[in-house]
């Protein structure tokens, strides 16, 4: 039914989306916090910068990333000397690109939640003896769990569907950079509609199932909070 390439693409996609989401959930909260509360004059600039990857069409963004990743350029050179391997057409390259591209989707729901948070609760956290990181994971995270899930879900879904960027810097190498989105695009472009439909269904089915489960748990918790 599903070709071997397609199934390895699925695994790779899950790995990429999972890792990207995980890393974003580490990076995004402090950034979102800063964006929500800093009074620095250059905050709006950083805020706009975070949204910037959205403005460029993914392929074009991918094109510029390709240039940046090239060993001819400082960043690509730096990476090469650091790791001994090239960034473009590698899983690491995809990961970095996905992180950049999905960043706003994770940062902004969090920022939206943080901006409305009442600082009173963090004061309670400090009173209870928790330092900054402890307040994050003992107070902020459990209190704003829905926002974290929404942010993570958005980042995850977006990484799965992302395509323009990874097409450009992935090079479609089976098992390494060939993702489901690309395989799906291939099928549609090469008029293999049957396979396209099958893969779409599979992707949608799986993602739906995952999201429904997560959102369902979230709803259950919410219900417990209000009516238990």
């Amino acid at each position, binding site marked *: 039914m599903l070709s071997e390439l397609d199934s390895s693409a699925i695994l790779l996609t899950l790995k990429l989306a999972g890792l990207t989401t995980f890393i974003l959930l580490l990076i995004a909260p402090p950034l979102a916090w800063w964006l929500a509360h800093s009074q620095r004059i250059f905050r709006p600039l950083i805020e706009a910068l975070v949204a910037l990857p959205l403005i460029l069409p993914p392929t074009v963004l991918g*094109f510029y990333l*390709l*240039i940046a*990743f*090239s*060993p*001819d*350029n400082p960043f*690509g050179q730096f990476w090469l000397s650091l790791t001994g391997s*090239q960034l*473009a*057409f590698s899983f690491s390259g995809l990961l970095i690109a996905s992180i950049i591209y999905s960043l706003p989707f994770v940062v902004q729901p969090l920022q939206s939640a943080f901006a409305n948070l009442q600082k009173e609760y963090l004061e309670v956290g400090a009173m209870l003896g928790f330092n900054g990181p402890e307040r994050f994971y003992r107070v902020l995270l459990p209190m704003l769990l829905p926002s974290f899930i929404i942010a993570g879900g958005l980042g995850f879904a977006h990484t799965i569907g992302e395509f323009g960027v990874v*097409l*450009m810097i992935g*090079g*479609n*190498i089976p098992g390494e950079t060939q993702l489901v989105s*690309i395989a799906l*695009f*291939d099928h*549609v*472009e*090469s*008029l293999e509609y049957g396979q396209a439909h099958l893969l779409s269904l599979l992707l949608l089915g799986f993602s739906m199932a995952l999201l429904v489960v997560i959102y369902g748990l979230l709803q259950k918790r919410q219900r417990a909070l209000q009516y238990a």
Partner: protein
Amino acid sequence: DFAPIKVAVASNFRNSLTEIAANYTVQSGQKVLISSASSGTLYNQIRHGAPFDLFLSADQKRAQLIEQSALGVKGSRFTYAQGQLAFWVPRQQAKVDLTTLKQYSGRFAIANPRLAPYGLAAEQALKALHLWRQFSYVQGANISQTYQFIESGNVEAGLVAYAQLLQNPLLKAEQYYLLPAHLHQPIVQQGVLLAAAKQPEKVQQFIDYLISAEVQALLREKGYL
């Protein structure tokens, strides 16, 4: 009247067509509107009612499929260009030739054989040279991505369209090797008149211009056969 002709053209030919159409407009007063995308996308769009008059595919297959369906005008299919493959190693100091290709090791950029005619041709050529298993490939979704992989320095060498190379002002003759055409099936780019065309005669006049000797000569200068 002056209703423009709407042409759907495969991305790789957009540049050339823009120039040709501009000349045509000067000559005939007829405006030409150019929409470009990958041939696959254009094909899908036409199948679902895109309001184009003329479809210039990057390959033969999709033009044929349209011609055979009710969407195309039977017998209107024509070849408007034939591409050439070039082996490009921009950072090479010595003259690039077949030996360079045979001795090359490392990542190799080609277009995706399933999506792009240049990719398919590249696969055929490399198989004919018994080199297909020698390389590990980085595939571009289309021939321009493949070109960009190499140009940006992320891949050292690959097979690109000769027409693209000629667009590069910094190109030196030592950097590439033009593959003999017999190594692969011809990369024919065909067009077809669409049944939805409101003014088929005007479109046909443009087709005639496209395949006229004058234009074909221009295309040869630009790297087509």
